[in-house]
Structure formats: structure tokens, C-alpha cells
């Protein structure tokens, strides 16, 4: 019976978010603060030849500019905070100007002349792979990561830009939806005998697909404010994570870890684009140091589009072999990623999704990520997995139909189980219950009855029923926990977890209260700024926090619990094993009257010193955690530990979705009538927040499958839809008001609290289920595109050439 885990509570930051009292980075002001604004590139490619800011610098109120020359040099493939020699996308920051007011800073921007030298540019990765095709960078078009062994025998992972071209026949083939024979790839893996796998297939599904990148558009743009005092940098930033920023940002600013105070009480969304420090933080930090004044660099909505990252697009080809019994025997997968100006793609993660969905007996993956002169790309909620889920779901339906197996049964048969594997190296998982989730979801949704309903609803309306799977790795190991009981008897959970809106910082802190049987009202979460002595933490990305930091807080709390018992035994006799806890006391198991309160134990720990009060700590703690423990040493009874819980395999986060839609064949519009989803995320730690996550992910799944995409003009490299309204994330009018969701709620055996993460696959489940439903409504037609927008549906129904044209580029 748990006290805190699995029970609702109000995270401590919620009242401030409701009332508006909580502060985001932009809300912080400082005496003498100046306002900085950035000037960005109007060109998709080129280099800065000259900057003439003399007129701007003569303006009253302008205090200075900062350019790439003022920052540590960053060479490709690095993403510079300010570009000079390598300008690679429209909207790339070139310089910043600071003034005593925003109005003056903006006026100053208009008086700065930047002379550029133009270079060739490209927005379509396939065009760049074509013989003679243009490259994003002068030196090439493809990001290649490889291991390189130096003369000292040390092997390091290096990333470099190479120039790779395919035979025209290979480009033509993939544009035509066929295997690009002869194409060169940078990532390849395979397991099993592919030929044998296809040979035993009763049916083969072979399809091309395209998914289009789209921006994160975090509601809070990545504004930062920094000031320096006595050699320390105080940095107000907008990040998904807290402690995960410190080491990287300190390196970026060239200072010691101890000289950075990173402050980030709340964050208005990141979705993968703010997991760690991003390059543009350097502008704020260095500009403040140069001017010796507090500097706020405010990022506009349009600039957030440019520098706020985006999902990478992909074009691909897949061949799926299915045996007569419905088991997937073989998969052959090719993915060409559009990596934008930063080159990274998510193809391998897309392939990983395929392994989880199918558990194929044999599979080959070949991928290449191509630079284009479009916005930087990075992780976005389920990067690779979720867009793959969207295009794979209708293909999965087709494969199931080809062998006469029900769509849900097909997924049940093939989906990842606890003894299964994920990824190309077929690595183990901690547990997985997709089959159980499908069973539960099918009952909740009444799948059998809904699927048997007539499709034609009259008046141009048709019904579609879909099912889909979302998946993402959901946890890590090896991070630190730090907890403390002070002489006032209160429990302090020091959390280096960021407040990105998921409230996982609070959910994982509940673990400490659970272990120590501490009332929540007597528990304080120390968080939000690094000078509150916060331990080393994972980045809040990859759906990992619940698993990762419930474990870290568990081991730290167990350390504190053991010390409580040791102190009691020391003072009251017997051994630590003779004691237990309850009612904020530690007492003898055979005589509850013999004991001491937590407050007394904390006071005693201060007297004892050493490891009891944090003067000593485990050697295997991260440097940041060591600083944090040093900061609290002597203030109470301190528990700190690194997560060394034994085990292997990655915890998966799985969500299955069931969707019923009404599609209007006259207008191409979709109305979602019903949606039910079931998560396999181990023990649900915080039910209310679980609901929020399931609903929020559902909303964005609609965006992925039906609405959102980059639109770039290949003639000039200009993006068409930089604003939020133009990017078309779903609104409350585009999604169902009432949805059903549940959890399998089977504890993960490798987390003492049982939980696994769930953030990312919630989107993938809806994206997949909706794509499946659209296909179902249209008699199994495969658009093989994410998104599938209104115009595509109309064109298909009208017999326009959308469906027969070669694959569109993944920017439109």
C-alpha cells in the first residue's frame, strides 16, 4: 500500500502557473539591464563579408553589438550561436545589438548593414544527393559520425561533413517510390537472413513514404537573461532540464561548474528543443560579460521558428514480409532524413520503432541524413518513432489484411514483449506489455463493434476506425539523488529535474516521501536554480524522467533511511536492522516507544558530521552532485547516492491508441468521434498528470498526422509558415473533447517504484491510430505521408495526381 505513489497531488508550482505569479526567464529584470535583439540572415546560404554597425552604435541608448568574432569559434558541423563564415539558413542569427529599451534595440537593427556573399543552397535532400546537386555547406551535404582512433590509441566519436552523391538512378528510384539501389548510406545495420525472411513470407508490402518536418514552436520562446557578479554567471534560461544544463553551459561560457548559477523556475514548453543548453545561450552570457551589465536577449515568435528547432523530415522505402500466420518475417527499410542546417536525422529511431512494432525475425536498415538550408533540426517528441508510427500504421493494416489477420490481432502478435528486443542491436527491455495494452484498449474502445459498423454514413461522410502504437525508450540509469532532513523535521528533496510542464520533478520527488513515509505537507522540493544545491540529473527528454529519477531519489532516500536507523541504533542501542520508521520517527521494531523523531535524528546527524550530514559522500557521485552535497553539508541528515541499481535493458514507453473518425469526402475534413488509448508505462506515479500527458500527446498526434508541416520555397529558401497560426498545431476545436485512457499499470521490475516514462508515445499512438483510421475510411488507401492534409485527401478523392506523383520533398 503506497502513500504517495499512484495518488493525486498538486505539484507546488501549479498555483503560480494558474495565478501567473510564477516567473519565466523573460519575467526577470535586473537593475541596469539592457535589451538585446538579434539580426538574422535573410539568405539561406552564404557568408558574412562585412558588418557596418556604426550608425546603430551612434544611436542614443545603444550600448553595443556582439558578433561571431566575440564568441568562441564554432566550425561545421557545429551549430554556431552567431554565424559568419557559414550562414546556412534563413533566420540564422548573425549579430545581436543591445540598448536601454527594446524599441531602441529594434530600431538599431534597421540601421545595421550586413554584406553577404551568397552561396548555392538546397531545400530538398534528394536534390542534394543527385549527381551535381547543391550542398548545404561548401564542404558537403551529409553529416557522418564515425569512430576515429588517434595516435594515442584512444578512439573517439567524431562528426564531420562529407559530400555524398547517389547515382541518378537511385535518386529517381526513391522519388518513384522504389528501393534506391546503388545509393550510399551512412548508417546501416542488419540482423538475420533477409533473403530467407522474405522467402518465407506469404505476403509482401512494399511502400514508399514521406514525413515532413515541422517546428517545435515552444510557447515560451527561448529568451534568456544573464548577469555576472564576482566572477559568477547568473543565467535565467528556458530549458526543459535543470541540472543537465550546468556542465554544458559552463563549458560554453568558459567558466567552472561552480561559477554558474542556472535559474529556470518554469518553462513554457520545449518538446525536445530545450533538453540541454542551446547555442544561443552563449549570446546572452557573453554579451552580458562584455557589456558588464545584465542582458536580456528576447527571442521573437518568428525567431523561435528559426532557432527553436524542428522535427526532421524523412523520405523512405520499406518492404515488409509477413508469414501466413501474421508474424512479420522480414523488414527492409531505407530512410533519407532531411537534417536541416544541423544535419541530424532520426532515421535510426524510426527503424527502432519498426523493431518494436514488428519484432521481425530479420531486418535491414539503411539510412542517410542530408543537410538542407532549412532550420536546424533536433529531437521533437518521439523523434523518428512518432512520424514512423504515423506512416507505418496504415501499412501495418495493409499487411494484416494481406494475410487475413485482424489489425489489432496483428499488432498483438508482433508487438514487443518483455522477452523481446528493440533496435538494430536487438537490445533487451526491462518489460513490455503491448499485448495487454491492446486487449485493454480494444475493450475500452469497443473495437470489435466499432470496426464492424458500416463505413458509409451518407451525405458524403465515411467512417474510419484505426489502431496505432506509440513507442519510445523511457528511462536511463546512473544519475544521482540528494535528500535531506533538517532539524525542523522537514524533508527536502533536491531535484535537478527541470520543470518543462510535465511535473515529473514533483512526481519523482514523491518517491523520497514514499520511502521515508513522510507526509507530503512536510516535504519541500528544492529546485529551480542550481544554487539550491541540485544533484546531477538526466536531461528531461526521451520520456526518461519517471524511471530515471524515481530510481535516483529512491537510492538517495534509502541512503538516508539507513542512516536514520544507524543513528537510532547508535543512540538507543541494538543494530540498524532492529529499527523501522513511521510517523516521522525511527523506532525499535519491538518497542515503538524507543525511538527518536526525524527532527532529532537530523540534529544528531549534524553533531555526528561525516557522512551523516554530508561532509562525506560517495566517490561515484557526479561533480555537480558533489558540489550540491557540499552546499548542504552540516544542515541536517543527508542522503545521497548514485543509482547503481542492477539490471539491464532499456525501459520502453508504449501507448496504443484506437480512433474512430468521420471523413467528409466533399471537403477532406476529418472529425474525430472517439479516441481511446492505453499506456504501458509501469506503475502510474501521478494519475492526474498521467491523464494530462495522455490528452496532450493525443492533441499533438493530430497535428503530426493531419496538420503540421514545414513549407519551404525551393526557389529562395524562404519558409512560408513561420507563425504559430501558419504552422497549424491543433486547436481545441480540432480534437475530441472527451477521450478515454487507461494504463496497464503492471510495475516495471527494474524500478523499485514500478514506473516508466510516457511522454512521447502518447503522441505517436494518436498519430498512428488517426493515420490508420483515415486509411480505413478510404478503403485502405495509403497516403504514405505525414501529415495527410485536407488538400491531399481532396486530391485523392478527386483523382488529382497527388497519389501518383513522385514523392514530394519533405518540406512540402
Amino acid at each position, binding site marked *: 500500500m503506497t502513500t504517495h505513489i499512484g495518488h493525486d497531488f498538486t505539484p507546488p508550482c501549479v498555483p503560480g502557473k494558474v495565478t501567473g505569479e510564477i516567473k519565466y526567464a523573460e519575467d526577470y529584470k535586473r537593475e541596469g539591464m539592457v535589451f538585446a535583439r538579434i*539580426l538574422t540572415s535573410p539568405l539561406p546560404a552564404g557568408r558574412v563579408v562585412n558588418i557596418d554597425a556604426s550608425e546603430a552604435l551612434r544611436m542614443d541608448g545603444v550600448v553595443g553589438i556582439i558578433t561571431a568574432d566575440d564568441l568562441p569559434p564554432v566550425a561545421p558541423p557545429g551549430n554556431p550561436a552567431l554565424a559568419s563564415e557559414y550562414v546556412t539558413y534563413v533566420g540564422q542569427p548573425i549579430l545581436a545589438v543591445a540598448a536601454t529599451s527594446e524599441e531602441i534595440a529594434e530600431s538599431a537593427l*534597421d540601421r545595421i548593414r550586413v554584406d553577404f556573399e551568397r552561396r548555392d543552397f538546397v531545400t530538398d535532400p534528394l536534390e542534394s544527393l543527385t549527381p551535381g546537386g547543391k550542398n548545404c555547406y561548401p564542404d558537403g551535404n551529409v553529416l557522418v559520425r564515425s569512430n576515429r582512433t588517434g595516435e594515442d590509441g584512444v578512439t573517439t566519436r567524431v562528426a564531420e561533413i562529407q559530400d555524398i552523391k547517389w547515382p541518378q538512378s537511385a535518386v529517381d528510384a526513391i522519388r518513384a517510390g522504389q528501393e534506391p539501389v546503388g545509393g550510399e548510406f551512412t548508417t546501416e545495420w542488419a540482423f538475420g537472413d533477409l533473403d530467407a525472411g522474405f522467402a518465407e513470407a506469404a505476403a509482401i508490402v512494399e511502400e514508399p513514404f514521406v514525413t515532413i518536418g515541422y517546428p517545435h514552436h515552444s510557447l515560451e520562446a527561448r529568451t534568456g537573461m544573464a548577469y555576472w557578479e564576482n566572477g559568477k554567471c547568473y543565467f535565467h534560461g528556458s530549458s526543459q532540464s535543470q541540472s543537465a544544463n550546468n556542465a554544458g553551459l559552463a563549458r560554453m561560457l568558459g567558466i567552472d561548474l561552480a561559477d554558474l548559477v542556472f535559474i529556470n523556475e518554469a518553462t513554457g514548453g520545449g518538446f525536445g528543443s530545450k533538453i540541454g543548453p542551446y547555442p544561443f545561450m552563449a549570446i546572452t552570457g557573453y554579451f552580458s560579460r562584455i557589456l558588464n551589465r545584465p542582458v536580456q536577449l528576447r527571442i*521573437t515568435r518568428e525567431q523561435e521558428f528559426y532557432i527553436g528547432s524542428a522535427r526532421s523530415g524523412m523520405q523512405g522505402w520499406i518492404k515488409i514480409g509477413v508469414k501466413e500466420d501474421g508474424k512479420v518475417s522480414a523488414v527492409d527499410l531505407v530512410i533519407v532524413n532531411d537534417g536541416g542546417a544541423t544535419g541530424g536525422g532520426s532515421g535510426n529511431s524510426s527503424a527502432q520503432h519498426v523493431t518494436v512494432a514488428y519484432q521481425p525475425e530479420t531486418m535491414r536498415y539503411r539510412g542517410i541524413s542530408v543537410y538542407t538550408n532549412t532550420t536546424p533540426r533536433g529531437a521533437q517528441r518521439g523523434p523518428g518513432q512518432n512520424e514512423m508510427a504515423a506512416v507505418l500504421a496504415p501499412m501495418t493494416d495493409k499487411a494484416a489484411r494481406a494475410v487475413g489477420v485482424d489489425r489489432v490481432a496483428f499488432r498483438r502478435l508482433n508487438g514487443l514483449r518483455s522477452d523481446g528486443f528493440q533496435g538494430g542491436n536487438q537490445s533487451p527491455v526491462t518489460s513490455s506489455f503491448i499485448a495487454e495494452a491492446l486487449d485493454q484498449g480494444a475493450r475500452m474502445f469497443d473495437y470489435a463493434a466499432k470496426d464492424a459498423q458500416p463505413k458509409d454514413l451518407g451525405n*458524403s461522410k465515411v467512417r474510419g476506425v484505426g489502431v496505432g502504437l506509440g513507442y519510445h525508450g523511457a528511462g536511463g540509469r546512473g544519475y544521482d539523488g540528494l535528500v535531506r532532513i533538517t532539524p525542523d523535521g522537514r524533508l527536502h528533496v533536491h531535484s535537478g529535474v527541470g520543470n518543462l510542464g510535465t511535473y515529473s520533478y514533483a512526481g519523482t520527488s514523491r518517491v523520497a516521501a514514499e520511502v521515508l513515509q513522510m507526509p507530503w505537507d512536510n516535504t519541500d522540493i528544492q529546485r529551480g536554480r542550481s544554487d539550491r544545491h541540485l544533484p546531477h540529473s538526466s536531461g528531461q527528454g526521451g520520456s526518461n524522467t519517471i524511471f530515471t529519477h524515481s530510481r535516483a531519489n529512491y537510492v538517495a532516500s534509502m541512503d538516508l533511511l539507513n542512516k536514520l536507523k544507524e543513528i537510532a541504533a547508535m543512540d538507543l542501542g541494538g543494530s540498524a536492522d532492529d529499527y523501522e520508521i513511521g510517523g516521522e520517527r525511527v523506532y525499535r521494531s519491538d518497542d515503538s516507544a524507543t525511538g527518536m523523531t526525524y527532527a532529532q535524528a537530523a540534529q544528531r546527524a549534524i553533531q555526528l558530521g561525516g557522512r551523516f550530514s554530508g561532509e562525506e559522500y560517495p566517490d561515484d557521485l557526479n561533480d555537480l552532485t558533489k558540489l550540491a552535497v557540499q552546499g548542504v553539508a552540516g544542515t541536517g541528515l543527508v542522503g545521497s547516492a548514485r543509482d547503481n541499481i542492477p539490471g539491464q535493458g532499456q525501459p520502453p514507453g508504449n501507448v496504443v491508441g484506437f480512433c474512430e473518425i468521420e471523413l467528409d469526402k466533399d471537403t477532406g475534413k476529418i472529425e474525430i468521434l472517439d479516441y481511446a488509448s492505453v499506456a504501458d508505462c509501469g506503475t502510474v506515479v501521478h494519475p492526474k498528470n498521467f491523464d494530462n500527458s495522455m490528452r496532450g500527446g493525443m492533441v499533438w498526434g493530430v497535428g503530426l498526422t493531419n496538420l503540421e508541416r514545414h*513549407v519551404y*520555397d525551393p*526557389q529562395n529558401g524562404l519558409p512560408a509558415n513561420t507563425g504559430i*497560426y501558419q504552422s497549424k498545431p491543433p486547436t481545441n476545436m480540432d480534437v475530441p473533447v472527451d477521450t478515454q485512457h487507461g494504463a496497464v499499470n503492471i510495475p516495471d521490475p527494474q524500478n523499485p517504484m514500478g514506473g516508466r516514462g510516457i511522454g512521447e508515445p502518447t503522441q505517436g499512438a494518436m498519430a498512428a491510430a488517426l493515420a490508420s483510421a483515415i486509411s480505413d475510411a478510404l478503403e485502405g488507401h495509403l497516403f504514405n505521408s505525414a501529415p495527410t492534409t485536407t488538400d491531399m485527401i481532396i486530391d485523392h478523392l478527386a483523382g*488529382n495526381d497527388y497519389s501518383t506523383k513522385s514523392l514530394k520533398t519533405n518540406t512540402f
Partner: protein
Amino acid sequence: MPSHDVMPNMELYQPVQVEDALEIADRLAERGWLVGGGQDTYGWLKDRAKSVDALIDLSGIESLRGIRETADGVEIGALTTLTEIASSDVLKSSYSLLTDAASVVASPQIRNIGTLGGNVSQDVRCWYYRRGLSCYRAGGNLCYADTPQGMNREHALFDASRCVAAGASDTAPALVALDASMVIRNGGGERVVAAEDFFVGPANDIVNTTVLRPGDILTAVRIPNTWAGATFYWEKVADRNVWDFSLVNIAAAFRVSDGTITDSRIVAGAVQTTPRRLGNVEAAIRGQAKNLQTAESVMTMATEGARTLAHNGFKVPLMQNLVKRAIAA
């Protein structure tokens, strides 16, 4: 490339009498910019895609607000918000075509501040033009959208002349269908222009989308009772169900007697710069039964003369389908 989001420095006039506003507008001419709700204005000015010396804020002129019944219809002040129009019992009872159109403009927040005058006077939504590129409409000598590689999914099917931008107003087609007229005042007096003539395509004027000229103020919209209580049909198709512009919309008014269409006005929006009245369809269905069979027999007439661009071909079947639905409903 500067990216702005604060207003540039400029003069601000806030008249409370229409006469004062007319005097200021006349005096400032091209240097002044009229603003009501500002939902079109602020984007242009904050983006620095257009610039002026002074704003003339009309929002304090009470006489430009409100919905008044007149002897031969209704008069709607140009500053009446879209929310006020959408919720007007007078309009809902007799001119629901307009309330239906007004109720789906943009989003509730924008409708709360956006005005009828602004909605019909707003500029086209071509993203190239709005970006500040020097296209024909902006005084240049090329169109970025009308090329084989142009991103022109939202652009026009008809009446392109150098510029292929489509109109963005949802209320404009409804007003044309209702045979409304626009009351325009300037220093020289008042003129009343039929809604159908108020909107101007690029062949006649590559810069302006209406007949309004510097010094003019659209003060009211009059809807005659000619079509009061007629059989109306309104439908807007957009990617999103709120906060989005029409891909195509249709506004139609029918007089029906014993199931037979005796007269109609059918207008499509977002298919050209101006609302497109479908006179050939109106003529073809006169005297025909108002049913699906009639609708299907004429739906393709609606798009005769359409010239599709690289990415807007879907608008042809979509427009045909909306015409069909309007007639068959």
C-alpha cells in the same frame, strides 16, 4: 534580416468623431493608416513589411459601432465587432448567412476585437507579399507564387493578373451574396458602393483590394431586406476548425418556391482576390429544383475558367463540392 515584434515609432491619432477622423485621414492621405481592431494592421507594421507615419485609431468613434434596423434592411457600423455580428438576434433572424460567416472568422479572441470593416478591408494573405518581398502587389515586377516551384497551395484559381493572391475575408462573400452595399465617407462627402463593386481584383488595381483610397473611411455596411429570411447556405473549409483562413468558402442565398429555385446569389471566397460570384451557376439553376440532382448537374460550371497553380488544384473539386452542397442542402 531584422525580426521585429514591437511597434515602430509613429504618430497616433485617436479621434472620437468621424468628422475629425475624416479630416485627419484627408490631411495625412498616404502617410496615415486607419486602424479598427488592428488584427490585420499590427502584423504589417510590426513586421515592418509596410510602414506609415501615423496611425488613425478609429476605435473611439462610437457612431461607427452597432447594428441598426432601417426602413429597408439593416445598417452595420464598420467598427462593429465580428462577435457582435455573430451574436446579433436581428441579423440571425433575417441574415443568418452573415452571422454564420462572422462566427467562424479566425478565433473567438480575434472576433472579439476584429471588426466588420477590417474584415472586408483586410489585405490578401499571400505569404510572399506579407513577408515584404517586392512582388507586383508590393510595387515590384514579379510574382513569387505563380511559378512552377512556388508554394501556392492557398492561392487563387481565377482572375489572376500578375498577382495570384486570394482574398481572406469570410464575411465578404456573405455580404456580396446578400447584395450589401458599403458606405464610404471622405472629405468630399459620402458614396455608397455595392459590395460586389467594393472589392477590386489585380487586373484593375494591383495594389488595392477595395475601392477605398487614402482619405476614405468605410463607415457602415448596409444590407437590404431584398434577401432577408431567404434560404441561406454558408460553409467554410479550412485546415483547422478555428484560427485559420478559408481554403475555400461558399456563401449562397436562394429564393425557393415549392422546391424550385426562383433566384439565387452564390459567391465563393478564397478562390480569387475578390469574392467570386457564380453568375453562370445562378442562371443555370433558376427554375430548377433545389436538390442534389440539380446541384450535381451544375457543380462543374462553378470552376469553369479556373487556372490551377502547382499546389492549389485541390481547390477545384473542393469548390465544386461546396457549390453542390449549397444547392443540394
